[in-house]
């Protein structure tokens, strides 16, 4: 792909902004992700925010929960498109992996990010 993917973090309240700041602090990469909050939005208004954020795509939408307004707006936007993919359960680990693998097709990048995020969920012995 010639144009690198960008990621859109879709969250309740300020989670997206905080994750973006954490990614930038750890990697120094600050231009790969865009935060979108659902604050004050109905489904239509959130879809408009997402449309502006993906800026024509290609993009991966990283949604906080596997249900609710962030998910419904994201899936509606991605429906029928190959240039936009959706991942739920966003965490810092998946974003750190994503910013260094933005040359993949959106669906592949989404799968890769989901696997990276899943691997980060553990219960270490203390």
């Amino acid at each position, binding site marked *: 792909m010639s144009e690198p993917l960008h990621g859109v973090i879709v969250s*309740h309240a300020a989670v997206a902004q905080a994750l973006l700041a954490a990614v930038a602090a750890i990697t120094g990469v600050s231009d790969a992700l865009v935060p979108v909050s659902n604050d*004050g*939005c*109905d*489904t*239509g*208004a959130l879809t408009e925010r997402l449309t502006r954020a993906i800026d024509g795509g290609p993009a991966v939408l990283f949604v906080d*929960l*596997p*249900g*609710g*307004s962030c*998910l*419904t707006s994201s*899936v*509606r936007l991605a*429906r029928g498109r190959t240039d936009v993919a959706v991942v739920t359960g966003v965490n810092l680990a998946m974003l750190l992996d994503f910013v260094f693998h933005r040359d993949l097709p959106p669906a592949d990048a989404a799968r890769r990010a989901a696997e990276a995020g899943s691997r980060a969920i553990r219960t270490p012995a203390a």
Partner: protein
Amino acid sequence: MTIALYRLDDRLIHGQVVVGWGKPLNASFIVLVDDVVRSSAWEQELYRMGVPAEIEVVFASTAEAAERLPEWERDPRVGILVSAEIDTLAALAVDGHQISRVNVGGLHHRPGRTERLRYVYLSDAEAAKLKALAAKGVEVTAQDVPTAHAVPLKDFT
């Protein structure tokens, strides 16, 4: 028990409904009343994704809801009914149905609406519809989550 919460929310089923209200109420079923969602299997699957498997989700058109409301009101389980439209709840509040309270949980900005509360935007016509509902004896308050203060209708219309 019965339907413990009649909620107006243009996001329909989402975190505040499932977790915020559903947990403290110990809700076992959620009725989503919306004619568009009722006619789309894809939309229904989307809303079902956000609900734990142990909570039943019922999708109904306004007409179906009017017919089945007595059944849901008699249900021994606790339920939540949610709709995005004031007209829908107003239609359900007629014909002797036992809707005594309506919770305005989230009606967001659209052209023609003005901000009444952080999470409630209404046109003058919509405010009048809520007042008409209250005039029928329905207690209408705004409250996004259970831990928030319930704002009386007169304070946001």
